[in-house]
């Protein structure tokens, strides 16, 4: 009887190699984390001031089986327990994605386990399901180095992008501003830290775009910061980096929070989920909590830091739902650096 009960558990292995983290996780029944292993390459890329794709790909090959083994050991299960293998098929760096995709296919073939290709952003959103059960309809604010999006979900596995950045992602703007202030890579956490020590006293633009739009634009803000520093230098004035960081961060947060709030009202959502690496930003977390935590009828979910940055638990969590919906990938699954999240909707 016990045997039989165990057989009904769903175990999903997730693999994520879209950028500079080699990650494998195992999730039980969609929400329980049995293993979550992340090998970060950040130390290697720091000396280049950003992620170098060829070097990222090389590190993934070095790490992949080590990380796989550690995840299986952590979970204490074997292949025969696995219901499916979920892997990030895109978007991301193509050479990096290829390592995860091909490792996933090799395991799926070797043990006859179903394969599920997952969109990276679907993963980021589903990291929230490891914290709390999702309630629909919901809105997710996705903010990371490569993405700034508002994603509306009416049901599991269905994603509608209602707003996205037209130029730089918020995370990119953070990195560029950090470089302007000569802060080390990655710059986001440094700006966040400085912002808390300064006052938002410098006037910087906020890009609202046309009336009613949920899209974002951060390149103008980034240029304004660079110009402010440049002009001060030419006049021989000293800019207080803390104040500039605080002003920049305030501008980003104002736009994110205002547009999110408007979308929440229009779509009458039950939950707001924060997703993506920039969700680690203390200023953004505080602003969202301040604005939305006490909204009656709307639940705000902010995952812990380790689930906001790239990881494979989120890929397994999304894969769990897609697998339940009957979505399988073939052994011809490819890495797709420009993958559209809507691929999950049509199936």
């Amino acid at each position, binding site marked *: 009887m016990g045997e039989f009960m165990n057989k009904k558990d769903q175990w999903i292995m997730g693999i994520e190699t879209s950028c500079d983290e080699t990650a494998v996780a195992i999730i039980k029944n969609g929400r329980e984390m049995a293993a979550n292993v992340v090998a970060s390459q950040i130390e290697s890329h720091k000396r*280049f001031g950003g992620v170098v794709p060829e070097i990222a*790909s*090389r590190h993934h090959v070095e790490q992949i*089986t080590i990380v796989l083994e550690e995840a299986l050991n952590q979970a204490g299960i074997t292949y025969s327990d696995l219901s499916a293998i979920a892997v990030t098929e895109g978007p991301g760096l193509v050479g990096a994605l290829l390592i995860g995709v*091909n490792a996933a296919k090799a*395991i799926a*073939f070797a043990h006859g386990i179903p394969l599920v290709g997952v969109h990276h952003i679907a993963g980021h959103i589903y990291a929230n399901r490891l914290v709390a059960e999702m309630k629909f309809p919901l809105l997710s604010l996705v903010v990371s180095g490569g993405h700034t999006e508002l994603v509306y979900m009416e049901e599991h596995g269905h994603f509608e992008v209602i707003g996205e950045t037209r130029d730089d992602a918020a995370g990119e703007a953070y990195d560029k501003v950090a470089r302007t202030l000569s802060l080390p890579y990655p710059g986001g956490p440094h700006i966040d830290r400085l912002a808390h020590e300064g006052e938002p006293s410098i006037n910087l633009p906020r890009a609202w775009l046309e009336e009613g739009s949920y899209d974002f634009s951060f390149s103008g803000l980034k240029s304004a910061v660079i110009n402010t520093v440049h002009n001060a230098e030419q006049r021989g004035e000293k800019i207080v980096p803390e104040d500039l960081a605080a002003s920049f961060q305030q501008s980003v947060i104002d736009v994110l929070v205002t547009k999110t709030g408007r979308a929440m009202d229009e779509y009458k959502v039950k939950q707001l989920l924060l997703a993506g690496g920039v969700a680690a930003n203390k200023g953004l977390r505080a602003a969202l909590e301040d604005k939305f935590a006490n909204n009656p009828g709307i639940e705000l979910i902010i995952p812990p830091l380790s689930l906001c940055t790239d990881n494979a638990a989120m890929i397994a969590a999304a894969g769990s739902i897609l697998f339940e919906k009957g979505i399988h990938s073939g*052994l*011809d699954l490819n890495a797709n650096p420009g993958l559209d999240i809507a691929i999950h909707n049509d199936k």
Partner: protein
Amino acid sequence: MKVLSIDTSNYPLGVALLEGDKVIGEYITNVKKNHSVRVMPAIEMLMKDCDVKPADLDKIVVAKGPGSYTGVRIGVTIAKTLAWTLNIPLAGVSSLEIFAASAGRYFDGVVSPLFDARRGQIYTGLYRYKEGQLVTLVKDQLLLSKDWADQLSEQNENVLFIGNDLPLHQDIFEETLKDQAVYAAPTEHNPRPAELALLGRDREGEEVHSFVPNYIRLAEAEANWIEANKEKKL
């Protein structure tokens, strides 16, 4: 003993199955198509046709480079993951050695397999059979085909050149080596995955976790970084 071999180091995609001394299956294409999409289905089809299940495999052999960085990585990732997950040994073989193994077997002289590496450069090594065994005379390297032709002209043996990229460099070899140079027939220009399997079959298994391609070259950013830091130290 059943051996699966995989070669995706250049445009040719090759998969073979060896059972003892017998080649029971071999699949080769030489088209500019995506290896990542095609190699697993190729392995699946070949194994199905040969009635071999993944659990029946005793060893994985892979072409570990040199070649296209992405191409080699696809083959190596699949090979090391299969070896690890099936808990069987993994052997890596030079992508160039595979050519020498087949065409060089009945050739009286040395063998220089090659891949074009752009800007007049080639990846090549030097091999020959001695008492039935293939030996490496010059390790795989990256150099100008002009320089390679000059080096080869200083020795007295005939040289067999093999590889699909040969037409890009044949003029240089003809000019420098004249009658000393011999060119393989088109049927030899795709590396035979069965030769790869045979070469790897009797080799000692490698440590799977630390197994990586032989890129020959550092990543460009890495090389630049080392150069820049050298200058700093001076």
